[in-house]
């Protein structure tokens, strides 16, 4: 096999870098595109495969189901445990002109093969291990608690993301069991191969879960927060998770209790639904995730703007287990800004 290496993939995947790679490597006419690295490198391979096959600009493919047909085979080889991009139908890029991150989702973006070798994560630094693991945690919780849809024969034909279902749930629980077992150790002692294995299994499983079920409120709110603060995606979604869980709890007592039992907690459903939120908050604190949007650097006067921007992510908003309107998003955002989770309690 003849190999050409493009090694200038940038963090956050600016759109110009992708077209630059295609211009430089298109004449090589690859039979397979490998993405080796974190989410950006895997998403780069996915986007390059799309442009090699269908041409045009990536802007033509923003949103859901806009890619017209199959693309060149992609092999995804993660070197962090977090995005799950090795198995998902999603690529996230930075549209530098618009100053925002944009998602492209289509089943054609699912790699041909995912090769997850935990030894590749042994040198991942503690901060990146924490943020990536927190991203996987959020994928697992948001997919496991996503709204179940009315089941129709065209549900999976018309939609990339189809909400809570029995198959994604299995992967969600597998992910959460391993995250609670291994994330603290993986952050503290990166050379611990067992913890690295469990975390890579967790992020893979979380990817399998949200790749069909989808994500919800924490992701909707993180997009404007990330655009404003330029903080890592995984850090923002994880920070928001306990607040979103507190808001969602009345509609998720059973699902939260199921997760809580899977990670070894005991009690009634009602008790467990509270305990789980505390456990999630404790885990995130232990691995160094900031607790408030204020700590993350969100300006105080941007709280309502954040909520008003988040409501525009209609797909994520509709996937939330408890109905979201602008007022609800404002309440979550304000609680997350001040660190006052109790204001959302019900």
């Amino acid at each position, binding site marked *: *096999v003849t*190999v*050409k*290496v*493009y*090694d*200038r*993939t940038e963090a956050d995947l600016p759109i110009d870098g992708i077209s630059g*790679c295609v211009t430089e*490597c298109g004449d*090589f*006419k*690859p*039979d*397979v*595109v*490998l*993405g*080796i*690295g974190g989410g950006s*490198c895997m998403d*780069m*391979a996915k986007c390059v495969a799309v442009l090699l096959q269908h041409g045009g600009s990536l802007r033509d493919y923003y949103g859901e189901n806009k890619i017209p047909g199959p693309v060149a*085979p992609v*092999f*995804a*080889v993660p*070197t962090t445990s977090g995005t799950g991009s090795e*198995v998902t139908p999603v690529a996230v890029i930075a549209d530098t002109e618009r100053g925002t991150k944009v998602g492209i989702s289509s089943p054609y973006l*699912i*790699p*041909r093969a*995912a*090769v*997850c070798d*935990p*030894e*590749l994560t042994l040198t991942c630094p503690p901060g990146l291990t924490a943020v990536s693991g927190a991203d996987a945690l959020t994928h697992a919780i948001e997919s496991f608690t996503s709204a*179940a*849809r*009315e*089941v129709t024969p065209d549900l*999976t034909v018309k939609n990339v993301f189809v909400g809570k*279902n*029995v*198959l*994604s749930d299995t992967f969600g629980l597998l992910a959460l069991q391993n995250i609670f077992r291994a994330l603290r150790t993986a952050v503290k002692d990166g050379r611990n191969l067992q913890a690295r*294995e469990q975390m*890579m*299994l967790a992020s*893979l499983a979380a990817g*399998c879960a949200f790749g*069909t079920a989808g994500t919800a409120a924490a992701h909707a709110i993180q997009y404007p927060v990330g655009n404003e603060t330029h903080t890592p995606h995984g850090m923002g979604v994880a920070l928001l998770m306990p607040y979103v869980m507190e808001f969602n709890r009345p*509609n*998720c*007592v*059973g*699902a939260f*209790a199921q997760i809580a039992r899977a990670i070894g907690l005991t009690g009634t*459903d009602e008790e467990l639904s509270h305990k789980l939120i505390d456990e999630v908050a404790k885990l995130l604190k232990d691995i160094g995730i900031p607790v408030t949007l204020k700590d993350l650097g969100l300006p105080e006067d941007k709280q309502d703007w954040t909520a008003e921007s988040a409501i525009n992510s209609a797909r994520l908003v509709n996937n939330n287990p408890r109905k979201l309107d602008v007022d609800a998003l404002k309440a979550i955002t304000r609680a997350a800004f001040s660190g006052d989770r109790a204001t959302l309690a019900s």
Partner: protein
Amino acid sequence: MTPSPTPQLFGALRLPATVLFGSGQRAAIGQMAAQIGKRALICTDARMSADAQFRPLSPTWRPMA
């Protein structure tokens, strides 16, 4: 418990044709690529670039620290 809004079990998964998991499985990448074609483009970043030249497709690839 909140009652389930759907009366029947429903499931959906869309996944890669091949998912490999485990320490050392990277050694399979070269042969897997050879089954598909003759030319492979590797997209990676500066952190990986030092050992990116050909080595990810070699069965003895060990990434540099």
